[in-house]
């Protein structure tokens, strides 16, 4: 997203996560124009520091479904972020919350589809 010219702010509880962002990059993340904040997602102060109030889009993609679903609703209802996308591994909850109006992405469901397609292609071939 940063390379496409958007302003991107990353919030992670692990300060080391910055190293991942900079892997295979010539420049430091912040020199590239990115922002990085250390903190946990449920901390309002951390969200504010990461600039949630002026965000056009918010992506909740921590490794916890429940955390993502709560934080996404906070982004939407409290901070009125126009676009909110949530990663939910559990297909059942991804489906129900998308019916409730959250834009959910379920990597499990995507992987199942891809695996099925791969199997069908093999069988046909």
């Amino acid at each position, binding site marked *: 997203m940063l390379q496409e010219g958007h302003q991107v702010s990353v919030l992670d509880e692990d300060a080391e996560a910055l190293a991942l962002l900079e892997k295979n990059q010539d420049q430091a993340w912040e020199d590239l124009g990115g922002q990085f904040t250390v903190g946990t997602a*449920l*901390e*309002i102060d951390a969200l504010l520091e990461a600039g949630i109030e002026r965000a056009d889009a918010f992506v909740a993609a921590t490794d*916890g*479904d*429940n*955390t993502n*679903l*709560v*934080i996404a*609703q*906070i982004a939407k*209802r*409290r901070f009125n972020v126009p676009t909110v996308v949530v990663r939910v591994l*559990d297909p*059942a*909850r991804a489906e*129900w919350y998308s019916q*409730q109006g959250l834009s959910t992405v379920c990597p499990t469901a995507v992987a199942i589809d891809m695996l099925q397609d791969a199997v069908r292609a093999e069988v046909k071939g």
Partner: protein
Amino acid sequence: MYIVVVGAGKVGWNLARELIGKGNEVTVIESDASRFAMVEEELEHAVHYGDGSELWVLERAGVARADMVIAVTGDDEDNILICQVAREKYGVERVIARCNNPRNLQHFELLGIKPAVSATDLILRLIEHEVPRYGFLHLLDLPQERLEIIEIEVAEGSPAAGALVKDLGLPDGSLAIAILRHGTGFVPLADSVIEAGDEVLIVLDTGLETKITERFQPPAEAA
């Protein structure tokens, strides 16, 4: 009542035991295998193994026919979601959530999960009860309705001591609803006499505390 308790930690386990003892039907859900095994020895079929924030686990526990769901895991986001799903997907009318970190209470409120019970807040409140800062105890707070009920002791030499209820001079927006005296209580009439040593229960609009307490304390110069 049929009650689903999510989380069989210290809170959940003891809660389940008490609720069963009072004649309720209870299912406890615990996601940690060794904890589950331990609790199962006592509660047997009343405890289920699984992640209580997953829909099928809740469904297996019969969430749809539950009269109440109580989420007392150690994770606030789990407790929020469990209660949200129980109420909004399965139509459970009453939910209670445990709030582990009082700073997260705002998230419970935002998502309409109430009541949220925070042990830290309760202890802070108990401290206030035990060591009242302003000479009164908060018995009940209804923050949304901006009402509270306090209990206040009538000090010797205060304006209230020896006064009739109608002459108490309580501000508008407050009302004396009960008097506790010598271990019994009664609902006062306008001409009931208030005695020093009585404890008076007052319902009031939030914010009137100081105006009320001054009626029950001796005048500053006499103190």
